[in-house]
Each structure stands twice: as C-alpha cells, then as structure tokens.
C-alpha cells in the first residue's frame, strides 16, 4: 500500500511574510483515489495544489509525486499530471479549439491535432458544437471556460488531476456533468483526482476520501467508509412516554436530548434503538431519520464555524 501513493506530503509548510498558508501538512493520496480537499476560503487548499503543481515553492517540507521526491524531477513528473487552479489558464484571444491545439502542441501531440482528438475533447465536456466556431474564449461564459479548462486538463491522458474548485460558475446540470466526467475518468482510466470544492454535498457524491483543512492545518484525513461510519444519522422520535424513553436511551450510552421530541445523535443502527423502545413497551408515535452530511461533519470538526 505504501508504494501506491501518487502524492505524499511531509510537513509541507508555506509562509507568506509572517502568516502561514500551510502549516506542516502531511497527507497521502493513493492511486485511483478521488480525494476531496475541504476547507473554507483561505484555509490553504489552493496553496497546497499550487505547491504540488510546481507553481509555488514550499517554505519547508517535502512532497513526492508518483513516488519521486526529487524537486529536480518535478517538471518531468508533471507531464503525467494536469491541473486547474481557481480559474482555467486559457488563452483568451484564441477560440476554444485553438486553446486545445496550443495545449496539444506544448505537449508534443502534433498528430492528435490533425486527428479527431480535439473534437473528441470538446465533445467530452459538452462543447462539441464549438469546434467550428471562431468565438474567442474571452467571450465564453464562466461555465464554458470551466468546461474548456477541464478539457485542457484531460489532454495527454494524465494519471493525476489536481482541480481547484472546478465547478465554480457551473449550473446544476453542468456540475452533474463535470462530476460524471471525473467519475468516468477515475473509473475507466484510473485517474487519481485531488479536488477542492466548496460544494460539499456535491463533493460527497463522488469523493472516495477527504482531507479537511483549516488555517493551513490538516484537521483530519478520512476515507469515505470511515466518514460514513463516523457521521451516522440522527433520529427524532416521539413516544407515549418521552421521559422514560429519554432515560432508557441515555442509560444505553446514546447522545439524547428531550425537547418534546427525543433527538438522538449519531446513530449507527436505527433498528437497535427501536428495539430498545419496543422491548420496554413504549409506543412510537413519530419516527424520523436524518442522514448526517459531509457538511455537518465538517461543521462539527470546525466546532460549528460556518462560512464554508
């Protein structure tokens, strides 16, 4: 397992003047993983991706890409990676098609330019109709630019994609399409993805692991399965004797409040709760399950701090 890390960071630190944008960050991303980087504005998500893509140099600490730690090898290692940071780096004065051609030429993919590769990439992100258009990128909508940025990021079949807020500016349909694209790349081509997003419900639909970051610190790294286990669900129950139900469940170690309705937090097994109430001859008048979300988990980690 140790060898299949695509990215590892070891006490990665970045200081700007006296403030720390990243503070001894150590994480690992396995091959084939989709790691969601979760944090509020200024938490250090973009800085981390910038360092990993060689745009920003760390103040201290090291990182490895594809198992190689040598900074001198970074340019050649990045040939197998692609990146989109904050906004896609596009040539505004060119058309979408020309942007893709320019990217192909930099990557030495001259043959692909002449084949149907460009059309294929545009189709892939739902911009196929723009193949013959001379419309310049500066006249594209934000969503179209995001899609084009993702198309550029897929050129050359990268093994690793680092995406910072890739769904910014997209409508709900666009968000779903981009999610499907990324899941396809991950499932079919085994692309490892590091993605930061503010849209936590969206992220929770496809990330296979998470790293929560705040003020430059990694608060927690957790897999999808561990997260499901930890967040559990909350139950709301009303019985013919709430006081008795409250004391029973409290004595069994559940986190319970009684405010006219019994509220039980983080329940792994709802059936077990119902069983306790039934065996004690309590009649259930009202029962509701509420799944906890990634957002709830993140809020709890931050101690109820909002502004994600």
């Amino acid at each position, binding site marked *: 397992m140790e060898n299949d890390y695509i990215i590892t960071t070891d006490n990665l630190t970045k200081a700007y003047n006296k403030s720390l944008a990243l503070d001894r960050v150590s994480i690992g991303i396995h091959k084939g993983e989709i790691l969601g980087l979760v944090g509020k504005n200024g938490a250090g998500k973009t800085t981390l991706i910038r360092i990993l893509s060689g745009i920003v140099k760390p103040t201290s600490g090291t990182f490895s890409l594809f198992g190689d730690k040598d900074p001198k090898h970074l340019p050649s290692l990045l040939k197998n*990676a692609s990146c989109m940071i904050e906004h896609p*780096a*596009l*040539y*505004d004065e*060119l058309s979408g098609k*020309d942007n893709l051609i320019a990217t192909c030429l*930099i990557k030495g993919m001259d043959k692909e330019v002449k084949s149907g590769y460009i059309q294929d990439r545009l189709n892939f992100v739902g911009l196929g109709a723009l193949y013959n258009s001379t419309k310049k990128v500066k006249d594209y909508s934000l969503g179209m630019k995001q899609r084009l940025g993702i198309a550029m990021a897929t050129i*050359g079949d990268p093994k690793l994609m680092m995406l910072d807020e890739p769904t910014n500016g997209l409508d709900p349909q666009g968000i779903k399409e981009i999610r499907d694209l990324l899941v396809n790349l991950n499932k079919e081509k085994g692309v490892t993805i590091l993605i930061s997003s503010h849209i936590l419900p969206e992220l929770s639909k496809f990330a296979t692991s998470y790293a929560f970051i705040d003020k430059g610190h990694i608060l927690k790294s957790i897999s999808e399965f561990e997260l499901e286990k930890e967040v559990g669900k909350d139950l709301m129950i009303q019985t013919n004797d709430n006081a008795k139900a409250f004391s029973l469940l409290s004595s069994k170690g559940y986190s319970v409040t009684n405010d006219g309705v019994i509220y039980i937090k983080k329940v792994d097994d709802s059936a077990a709760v119902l069983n306790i109430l039934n065996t004690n001859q309590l009649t259930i008048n009202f029962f509701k399950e509420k799944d906890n979300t990634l957002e709830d988990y993140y809020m709890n980690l931050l101690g109820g701090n909002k502004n994600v």
Partner: protein
Amino acid sequence: MFKLFKSYWFRLKRFPFFWVAIGLVALVAIASVSIVTTVSYYAYTYAQSIGEVYNASLSLTYLSYQFLIPSSLVPILVLLIIAIFFLRDVQHGVYRNQLLSGFSRTQVYLGTILFSYFIFLTIFAAFLIPFYVVGACMPRNLLPVSILDGKTSSLSYLVILITDLTLPVILDSIIMMTQNRGASIGIFFGIYFLVSMFGLITTFSSVYGYYQLAEFFTNYQISKASSIVPNFDTAIKIELVDGVYQSSSVTGRTIPLILKTVFTKVFYMAAFGVVGGVVYNRRSLR
C-alpha cells in the same frame, strides 16, 4: 524547447498586431526607399544637367540616415508585441500550462527570450527585405549599393542589431521577474528613463570617450554611423579649477564603437538575463 516554440508560433500567427507590425514596417521600408531613391536620383540628374557637382544627397551619411531612421520603428514595434504577447500570458496565468507540460522554469524563461529574438528577426526581416528589394529595383540601384559598399554602415547595422536584441531581453526578464503587467511596463520605462538620465550625466561630466550608455539611443547610433571617423567623440570636460567648475569641449579618439557596444550590450543582456532567470526560478507564480 521546440514544442514550446511551436505552440508560441501557433499563437503568434493568430495575433493580429503581429501582422499589422509586419505590414507597417514593410510599408515604411518601401515608402522610405522609394522616396529617398527617387529624390536622390532626380537631384543627381538635375545637378549633372546644370553642370554642378552635387553629391550631398548621395553621400553615405545621407543614405545611411534614410535606412537608420525608419528602421528605428522595428524595436519599438517588437517591444510592443512582446509586451502584449507575453504580458497577456502572465496576466492569464497561462505560463503554468507550460510548467505542467513538463518544461522546467529555465526552459520556459529561455524559451521566452529566444522567441522574442525570433519576433525581432521576423519584424527586422520584414523591414530589410522590402528595403533592399525595392531599392534594387529603383533607378540606378542607388540605395542598396551605397549602403552595402559603405565603410561605416555595415558596422553600424551590427551595432544597431545588438542594441535592438538587448532591449527584448531586458523587457522579458522584467516580465518574468515581476509577473505583473503594470509593474513590468513601469519598471522597463523606469530603467529606460534612468539609463537616459545616467547617460546624459556621464556624457556631460566625463572626459571624452565614455559614452557606453548613450549608445542605447538612436540619435547617437545615427551620428556614429554617419560619421566619417566614427571613433571620434566630443564631450564636455568639467574640471575644478581654483574651487570653480570650468567646462570645456574636448575631442578625441574613443574606444572603437564596436568594442564598446558589444561589451556594453552583452553586459546588459547577461546581467538582466541572469538576474531575471534566477528570480523567475525562485519566485512563486500566478
């Protein structure tokens, strides 16, 4: 590096100002060579017809001016193209595409400078070729023959070529160091202004023979190119005599222009090139 160039060229071809610049210098070259040759020819013919010796309009001095003055448009346009072309890349953060395509920062930096040279040479060729071709077609083939045969001019063109190649390196290095459009333009013109001031100060306060900085300026190059004895300079000598500054005009032989120019320009190119490369390698990018 070749891949980088291919991508740059692909984009430059779609950059309208590049073609406008090529058209403009070609037009200026054709216009200037046509007017000068025609005027010179008729002046010469008229002088002959009235039995006078009239060589002024055919002298090397006069003809060199006709080449040098319009050719000074070339570096201005080149600097404008470089400023717009590369500063746009900086502004949009697209340099990161090159880094993410496997190029090291050194390669990206050198690629920028070399491609600037390519832009310069292309624009220069767009001036030179029509100038000579049209000149050769004009009456008596006066201009090309005069310039090619001139003893001072071929050296002067080399001086100008080296000077013109220095400016893009300075601008490129500032762009790559600052990664900021406003700062790049401000610093470039700031340096140009300081060098101008320094050049003026050193020109007026030194004993003859120290004109290195003045060589950046077209007027000085033209005066040298058109001079019969190009290694002679005149300067104001300022001396403190009995507690009073006294100035006098002195004339003397300077270090050969070509040596001074090559040394000065290569020094500037190397200094800005190396400092720019080191800073670009170390700094965080957009």
